[in-house]
């Protein structure tokens, strides 16, 4: 059952890339992520002159014997990047115009990321499922069986209730005390300023926050051949709509919403990516990871 989240085709596309965290997180477990901080590891970094109070264990006695000066030996530390994924499980995620609902797409993507993080990078990964409250929380860890716990959490995340970013925010703060990568997957049917305002505090801990905006292609370019009665999946409210409106005003409003989301997120230092459910999953992730790597390289 869990294998459906580990589509080999998807993983194949991701395997070729190194996940390089943008932010260095504390930790001493060996990995592939280079930390900008210095720690105590095997790879030499530099010498520093001894100053009173330094630990004498780190003095390079060989150098002292040759030069009679005390230097401390410093090493380049390698660390892990804790990844926490926030998954929106509101009713609106049930929508689909084809075989894959937005929720399915989000699950596939989350599962792929979990697998990549735990299996390849040995990074701790955690999951928070929310709608108007926190529905499920899987603590970030690299313990054995963590991947199965995460995937089981994804399985249990059935869409219910409506989205509310305000209420579960305080809980996010409790759970996310360590720095790391925070990924938010949602269709973001809310005002952009409300969303950014609710998520922005997550960055204050030093975490890198990225928003994955999942939409169905028919939500961006809807088709309507005749007047129809529309039902809101979250509120159950009904509204009769004519095709002319959908072709003109709806498009304009949706474009404006997407533009606002992008701008507000970037201005708040949040990563933002719009993904539609008709795009191949590996392609979407590859696109994102490439962007991340290029941005890391640019930052050095």
């Amino acid at each position, binding site marked *: 059952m869990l294998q459906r989240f580990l589509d080999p085709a998807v993983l194949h596309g991701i395997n070729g890339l190194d996940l390089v965290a943008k932010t260095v997180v504390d930790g001493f477990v060996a990995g592939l992520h280079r930390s900008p901080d210095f720690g105590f590891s095997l790879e030499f970094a530099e010498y520093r002159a001894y100053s009173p109070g330094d630990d004498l264990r780190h003095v390079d006695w060989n150098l002292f014997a040759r030069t009679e000066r005390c230097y401390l030996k410093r090493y380049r530390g390698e660390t892990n990047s804790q990844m926490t994924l926030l998954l929106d499980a509101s009713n*609106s995620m049930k*929508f689909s115009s084809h075989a894959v609902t937005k929720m399915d797409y989000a699950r596939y993507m989350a599962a792929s990321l979990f697998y990549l993080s735990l299996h390849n990078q040995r990074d701790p990964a955690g999951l928070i499922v929310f709608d108007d409250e926190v529905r499920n929380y899987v603590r970030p860890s690299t313990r054995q069986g963590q991947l199965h716990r995460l995937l089981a959490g994804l399985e249990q995340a059935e869409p219910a209730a409506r989205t509310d970013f305000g209420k579960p925010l305080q809980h996010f703060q409790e759970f996310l005390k360590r720095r790391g990568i925070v990924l938010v997957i949602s269709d973001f049917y809310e005002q952009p300023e409300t969303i950014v305002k609710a998520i922005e505090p997550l960055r204050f801990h030093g975490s890198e926050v990225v928003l994955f905006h999942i939409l169905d292609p028919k939500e961006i370019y809807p088709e309507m051949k*005749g007047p129809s009665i529309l*039902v809101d999946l979250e509120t159950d409210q009904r509204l009769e709509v004519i095709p*002319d409106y959908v072709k003109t005003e709806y498009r304009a409003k949706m474009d404006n919403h997407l533009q606002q989301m992008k701008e507000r997120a970037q201005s708040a230092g949040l990563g933002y990516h719009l993904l539609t459910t008709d795009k191949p999953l590996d392609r979407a992730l590859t696109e994102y990871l490439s962007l991340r790597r290029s941005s890391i390289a640019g930052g050095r």
Partner: protein
Amino acid sequence: MGFLAPWFLAGALAVGLPVFVHLLRKQTTVPRPVSSLMFFEQGTQSSTRHRRLRYLLLFTLRTLTVLLLALAFARPYFRHKTVLASDKLLLVAVDDSYSMNAKAGGDAGTKLDEAKREALQTLSHKSVGQKAQVIELGGQMKLLTQPVEEGDQLRAAVDGITPGDGHATFGELGRGMRAMAETVHTPMELDLFSDMQESNMPGNFADMVMPGNVQLVLHRVGAEKATPNWTVESVQAPGQLVDTKKARVIAVIAGHATPAASRTASLVVNGNVVATKKVDVPADGRATVVFEGLDVPYGESRCAVRVGSGEGAADAFPSDDASWFAVKRADPERVLFVHQATDTRSPLYFGAALAAAAQAEFVLQPITPEQSSDIDPTKYAFVVLSDVPSVPAILENTLIRNVQVGGSVLVAAGMAESHREHIPVYDGNVQDGHFYAHGLADAAGFATVGEADGSHPAMKDANGWEGTKFFYAAAVPLDHDAGKARVVARLGDGTPLLIDRQMGEGHVLLFASGFDNLTNDLPLNPAFVAFVDQTAKYLSGEERVSGARVVDSYVQLRNPVNEASGDSAASKATVDVVGPDGKRPLSLKEAAAAQSFQLEHAGFYQIHFANGRNALIAVNPDPRESDLATVPDDVLKLWSGSAGTGAATAGESASEQADNSVSGLWWWFMLMLAITALAESAVASGYLGTQREAA
């Protein structure tokens, strides 16, 4: 315009269905879920107008579909007055019955020659592009060509018509045309070239009425007034002859439309005139001539009675002046009569009856079962087992084999057989014996014949059987005989009295009583002589081949094969038929399988049957063909006027009816229906597509 099936118009009521769907049924829209309504606004202003317009178009198309379907099934038509000559199928029917061999008068040759000349003239006046078909009307109606335009093919077909010996009937022509009109709906013109013989008229005028789209044009060939004709109407002569001095040949000389005249009747044997007699034939009447003694050589002889011109008027139809018959002279055939030593009455009565009948053709040879072991039954005409409880096994097996290949056995199951269940040769058992003398079944002490099948050769003269008293009859069950045994006579209580059972090519006739006068008084009855005579002829096979036949009659070549038992070994033997012209009309395949054969020509047929017997069969034309009286003009006018709507509207001219043809419109409606259905599918698929998307 009208409708051929107006009841289908009731189907137009189905229009109510689209009316209900579009106008009466409340329109419902399936709600369509969306993630959020935050970017939508309500709008209803212009939607219903578009929807109604499209629904109105769909409603119109659906209503039209239903109406066109109902109209197409009602088969609309319209009458139009103009029919092109090339649309009319020309049918040229030439009568080639036996009477057409008569002289037409003058130097024109026979009537058939004149008919063919006129038919060719009619074909030459056929318009270009018009199709025609040639029909030969003899004993049967034959289509000589398909409907074709090529004149050469049609003329060749007319030229190829040869004089026939059959008897034509206009009823056959009427039936054929009615059958043809079921498949050909275009107007047809039937040109009939015939001598319009009165004897060709069927018993019922309705049989010869033509269908509505046939215009009948009659062409009389020969004189309208009947020409005098003398003919030998019938000849009565023995088929098999033993004593030539006792034989008699009785001929009937008939005159049709003739004055009283003196004619000469000659008896011809194998081409030689052996006797001549003068006979006075009254005006338009008949006279009988009797020839005493028929001196023919041993074997089969081809004989004829011929009527000569003698003195007086000439004969217009010399071809029918002779009537042929075949006679076979042979020594008396022996009949093996197996009886018990104690039974002396049976051979006495049976032998006396056999001697009295059949012109002494058979000689009885009575023996007891003990003497019969080394008897060869093939040397006998047939075998009689008279109330013998058992026969030697060797004889029974020999008899069964003989029956399988065409021999015959007559079994009498008298009281002696009641002690034993098994009946020799006959594949059956005696279930019980009915002793009527004891008054158990009948208060009178005897039983009488309840029913008799007069069509069976052995019971042709069953008139004397009514008074016969039966005191005993063996009850033979028929359950396992279904399909093979035929009950020829039953007693009053239903007990089968005479059963004919086919075994292979031969027959076993079971008489469920005795030939003595103890079990019944039949031997004392005059009907016994006729019964023995006819039974002897039937079992010896003489009945099947004796006497003269009429043209177009059938002769049975082999017994029908019983598919269930498949016991006819002899049915696989080939037969051989040699026609009057010396040719063999049957192919090898037909000779191996044909059960019967139609005698199509007059003359002598030499036939070798499947059971090994040979016969010479004389075939004469139907005597009705000799009466050259023609159908009166008023009757012919009535007939030709009856084409169209029958005799009731005979006053209408045939041409007017033919021109008033009918054209069906249903396929135009079907075409429009197909177009409407396609349009409806296109419009409806758009609508349904929206519905599906919404769902």
